[in-house]
């Protein structure tokens, strides 16, 4: 069966553009608002990544940390994250949703229970930041059994042998981290170099959808449009922070940003 994630990439390809992946934090800044934001930006975004916030996020920079702390402070719980997805999917049946977060929360919820719940509310994929290959093998196969995409991460430090093994074990999508950085860092590597690394991954298996993330903003997104997909997160979280500060409508402002990003790669 062709997964919704695969379909989203195919649709973008038909339009001769990369897929746009957006990352927002569930519950930022409230449960209700984050669902509204998600629904609104999904008019432009091809795949929605939804973070379940952790209060010790070791791979996230300032913007996403702020969003995560804000969501936790406002009382978001894992079960709320599931209900956000469930509600979202009621009106956006074909829009793929990827949950993203840190392993301790899955571990405390209970791995099997967590994955069953994901399947139940129609989550399409999972990214677990601190569960690298090969420790994630068992978890990845549990995902597969439930028809969930486990998304492997690859970084500039990944050796070529490791890359081969990771790709062999990957599902429909691979996430390439553009540079040595936490999320939201300034793009410190040239797009040319990033695309060269990207091609190395792509050359291993053309059928895998490879997306690039980290350091992608309105300014840099165009230069990377040769990729299968591009992920934007910190820019969105930053916009939520700014809108709250200015007492403006977060839904409208964030949607505007996402629309602009989409226009850059059309």
């Amino acid at each position: 069966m062709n997964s919704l994630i695969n379909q989203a990439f195919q649709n973008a390809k038909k339009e001769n553009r990369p897929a746009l992946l957006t990352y927002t934090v569930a519950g930022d800044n409230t449960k209700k608002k984050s669902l509204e934001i998600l629904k609104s930006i999904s008019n432009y975004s091809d795949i929605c990544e939804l973070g379940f916030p952790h209060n010790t996020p070791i791979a996230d920079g300032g913007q996403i940390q702020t969003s995560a702390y804000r969501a936790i402070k406002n009382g978001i719980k894992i079960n709320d994250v599931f209900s956000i997805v469930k509600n979202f999917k009621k009106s956006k049946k074909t829009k793929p949703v990827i949950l993203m977060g840190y392993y301790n929360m899955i571990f405390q919820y209970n791995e099997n229970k967590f994955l069953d719940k994901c399947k139940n509310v129609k989550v399409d994929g999972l990214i677990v930041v601190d569960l690298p290959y090969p420790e994630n093998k068992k978890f990845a196969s549990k995902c597969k059994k439930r028809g969930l995409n486990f998304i492997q991460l690859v970084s500039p430090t990944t050796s070529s042998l490791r890359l081969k093994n990771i790709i062999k074990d990957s599902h429909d999508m691979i996430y390439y981290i553009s540079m040595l950085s936490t999320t939201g860092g300034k793009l410190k590597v040239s797009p040319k170099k990033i695309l060269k690394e990207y091609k190395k991954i792509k050359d291993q298996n053309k059928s895998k959808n490879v997306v690039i993330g980290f350091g992608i903003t309105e300014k840099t997104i165009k230069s990377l449009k040769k990729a299968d997909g591009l992920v934007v997160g910190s820019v969105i979280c930053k916009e939520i922070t700014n809108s709250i500060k200015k007492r403006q409508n977060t839904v409208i402002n964030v949607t505007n940003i996402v629309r602009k990003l989409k226009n850059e790669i059309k």
Partner: protein
Amino acid sequence: MKLKKGIPLIDQHDQHGFWGGKFGGNFIPETLKKPVEDLTNKFRKLRKDKRFLKKRDFYFKNYIGTPTSFVKLDNLTNHLGGAQIWAKVVSEANGGAHKIYNATVHALICKAMGKKYIIGDTGAGYAGKMLSMAAKKFGLKCKIFMGAKDIKRQKPNCDAMRKNGAEIVPVYSGSQTLVDAVSECMRYWVSNCDNAHMCVGSTVGPNIFVKICGWSTAQISRELKIQLVSQFKKIPKKVKLINCVGGGSSAYGFWSEFIDYDKRQIELIGVEAGGPKNSKLHAAPLSRNAKIGILHGAASYLCQNSEGQINDTESISAGLDYPGVSPIHCFLKDTKRARYTYATDEEALNAHVMVTKYENLNPSLEPSHAFAEAIKIAPKLSKDTIIICNSCGDATKDRDILRERLGK
């Protein structure tokens, strides 16, 4: 779950880095896989390299000033009337605490790996101070991550770090203590792992950092074993080794040579930070039965809520104020080789007062937790029982807190 004999505890993990099948591991972002693997390979070679060992021993002796003394606390013993109380005065080490062992070894590894930058976390400021000293000694640039709350309460150590030329990066996120300092240090490493070497300040973090730190502090028990034999002609029949436990680096170092002994002969007692008497918050995941969770790349007993969010901790002692604990201590707890308990802030303060009143010894608030347990149990024990406390830090850094709490 079983301990093996004749193999250092730091090496008793499986291929994925877990002790007892469930503690430790490597829960790290993909970017850190390679630097962690490089460090693991380098350390594996270096610890067998005779020239490296010679270098380590040279600096331990001439720079750190080993061995530190092993003394009987006669006045305290007489006052309490019961077991003999002894102290291993590790605070005599250069810089005033056991953190110098790990810092020195990391600086030597950093040099051996050809890196010029070294970064580290700190709570009480000792790990940071020692890393800044070692960095200066070996000509490395140094950055220390420290919670803003800790910078305020441990000023003397911050002054020392700056004097040594290190940059202190204040961390304002979360509770602004050690847990956030470690997170921020790891984030910095994710972004700069191509030219910076990371030192984790205790036996916590991804597997390799637990090993390097434990390997470094093990010097304490190697010395103690020799000192015990020279003092008593053989290892005495009833010994209790009491140590405070935050991350657990000094406790592991104090115990490592004695883990193979029967616990009826050598009992290992770890004392965690119980926090203020009337507070629900503490930093005692082992003794207050926290659930297993993942923090900073490793699985351990962990102060957390049912969702897996890390709880705030509270302790008068910045060095013990950490929600997790070393996976090797979790392993020692589950195999029942060590016993873990806690002392409250008030008990630790009282212990500090009593020890400084009776002895020419000035234990910081961290080892004061160990002394609190010694004071509690000594009167009930026979005179041929030897209680040894690891006085692993000096109280100079606690000047401001002691003045505030004791009016000194």
